[in-house]
């Protein structure tokens, strides 16, 4: 199965809003995300930076959180999105 990562920030309100939606999706489907916090864990931050070329064009040319990425295909989406959009994106990856 594809490795899906949710990069998030501990003090990011959009991330806080997305986390329950991600958990709901995981409860209803085979989708699983690694949830990696990037402002308090430099290793996670470096990993997110390593995907910059894939993330930035989808995120206003910046590294923004929350970001969801398929590490194999490099397909990424970011920001606070509704459940159906998240589900559609995630199911496309598995």
């Amino acid at each position, binding site marked *: 199965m594809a490795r899906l990562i949710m990069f998030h920030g501990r003090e*990011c309100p*959009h991330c806080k809003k997305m986390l329950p939606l991600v958990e709901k999706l995981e409860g209803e489907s085979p989708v699983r995300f690694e949830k990696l916090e990037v402002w308090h864990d430099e290793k996670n931050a470096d990993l997110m930076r390593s995907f910059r070329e894939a993330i930035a064009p989808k995120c206003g040319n910046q590294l923004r959180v929350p970001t969801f990425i398929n590490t194999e295909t490099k397909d990424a989406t970011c920001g606070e999105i509704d459940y159906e959009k998240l589900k559609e994106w995630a199911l496309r990856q598995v």
Partner: protein
Amino acid sequence: MKKRYWRCFVCNDIHYGIAPPELCPTCKVLHAYVEISAEEARKFLGGGPDTTMARGDFRAAIERFTVGNEFEVNPDAAKVDLLLTGVFENEKNHGFKYCPCRLRTKNWEEDLKLVCPCNFIIHETYKGIKDGECWCGLFVRRK
């Protein structure tokens, strides 16, 4: 063009920019600025009793910043509280009040664009949008 540091020879105001102000905004003296080194500027700015800004003072500063602008601080107090926690955590851990909803690249010049308040006027989440807000949501377009 590279930004440099300038000091008013009358009142010691420090300016960082590609050129000095023609008129010193503090003492109102014309052509008062002389170029100085970054190190000298740091010494001027790093001394004295007010070298840090408490969270409440920053909160008040951003409120004043919005006066007369088309945006305001988000009325959602819980959201603002979480964001300010992030901003101050980032200052403590990474040196600047970086936006908690983005990630620094480790490139100095690039990362200065993430310091709160950032230039969110140009962001696609704000520009031309009726209910626009900065990426993190600290500032929202005034209703």
